[in-house]
């Protein structure tokens, strides 16, 4: 199957694989900051840049991600407006959003690994989400609370 939505999801799934490797390193830094017993930091930021320089560089990447997100959103909005009739336009937006979200999230995700979490949270606010469909699609399985751990 080669429809664009499926392809986008597959690409997004693939991005999680290298991401999961990077996550382990990021996880150490994050968990360390949450560990009340840690006696020393294991953060790997060995750059000779000052914290201000690093923050500025990270902010620049976040700004770049936001600009790309805005561009993608504009494209999605433009395509939706071109669709005939309001109801079909709304449906078009729903089907187009996952692809845009996939590309946008990939861009934003790269920024998250380099910027502070609080800054990244701002960068990801613009990511579009498919919501508001009148009824839930039929599901093939359910993820849920287990009966026991």
């Amino acid at each position, binding site marked *: 199957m080669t429809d664009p939505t499926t392809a986008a*999801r597959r690409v997004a799934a693939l991005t999680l694989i290298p991401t999961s490797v990077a996550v382990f390193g990021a996880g150490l830094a994050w*968990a360390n900051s949450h560990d009340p017993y840690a006696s020393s930091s294991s953060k790997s930021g060995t750059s000779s840049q000052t914290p201000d320089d690093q923050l500025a560089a990270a902010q620049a990447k976040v700004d770049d991600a936001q600009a790309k997100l805005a561009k993608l959103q504009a494209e999605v909005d433009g395509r939706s407006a071109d669709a005939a009739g309001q109801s079909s336009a709304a449906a078009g937006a729903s089907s187009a959003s996952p692809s845009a979200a996939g590309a946008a999230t990939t861009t934003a*995700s790269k920024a998250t690994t380099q910027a502070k979490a609080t800054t990244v949270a701002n960068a990801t606010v613009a990511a579009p989400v498919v919501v508001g469909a009148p009824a839930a699609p039929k599901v093939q399985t*359910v993820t849920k609370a287990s009966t026991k751990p």
Partner: protein
Amino acid sequence: MTVSTDLAVTFTSMASDIEIRVVDPAPGAEEAVDRAVAAIGAIATHLTRFDPESALSKANRAPAAWHDVPAVLADAISAAHSAHRVTHGLFDPRVGATLAAWGYDKSFERIQTEAVGTTSWDIEIHRTLRGAPVARATWEPTVTGTVINLGGSPIDLGGIGKGLAVRHAAAALADAGRSVLVDAGGDEWLAGPGPDGDGWKVGVEDPLGRDEHVLVLAVTDLGVATSSIARQRWTVRGVPVHHLVDPRTQTPGGAGLAAVTVLHPDPAWAEVWSKTLYLTGAADIAASAAALDLAAAWVTVDGEIGLSAAIRPFVLWQVTR
């Protein structure tokens, strides 16, 4: 015209309904399913702490001693140790002692019908009220082949066991067919494009008990796990507790959260991260998921739904309220 018949098996293990489904099965699929069922059975047999004769129970009775154990248990201890290190201790299988002190030393169905409470509970309730950190060293088991040493502490592998079962089953089913589903009571592996060819449609249960799903995800080649307090919660001497214990305080964790769902290429890590993210609580989970770049969704005790950036491409539908 070729008419394909899906291959499906359901059974009960680890106190859960297990489902294995192969879409457009390839030659040898039935044997692959048999291997997957056996792999899940091995996890259930050797990793349970509710059977005093299991390999884990025997090791737990002498946690400072060396034991020659089945390979599946040695592998699980290594995996749990990796999770402990990567999460910097937030994943800690030693919380089983706290669960036992709260009466969870038997299958969950029996907790609410039998007396609970030990002298240690008085200590735990004191900690609950104080919210004080509990100082403890890093867990350092040793695994050499199939010879293990638990490092002096009994452990509970419930926080990773189902994820490992799904991981092993998924490996056994790698070439079984066009698409594969393994569902171990909500911890899942979803391979291939699914029955309709556009991803497996996964409903995310509403942890607050409403019939409608909170999300529908479209998933391909990923593990899915949900950590939730929808079912495993009870009271001890009037104090509400649940099974997701914060090792930093030895008290019920995840303040303000009802459930967390994580997508990850490895089902075992999906389970580890869903539990670990849950423990960060409602106030910190968004920043934590973003910092870790995890594909995560969560529901607060007030019913609010949160999404990380990485999970948004997989969201097919979200409930509106």
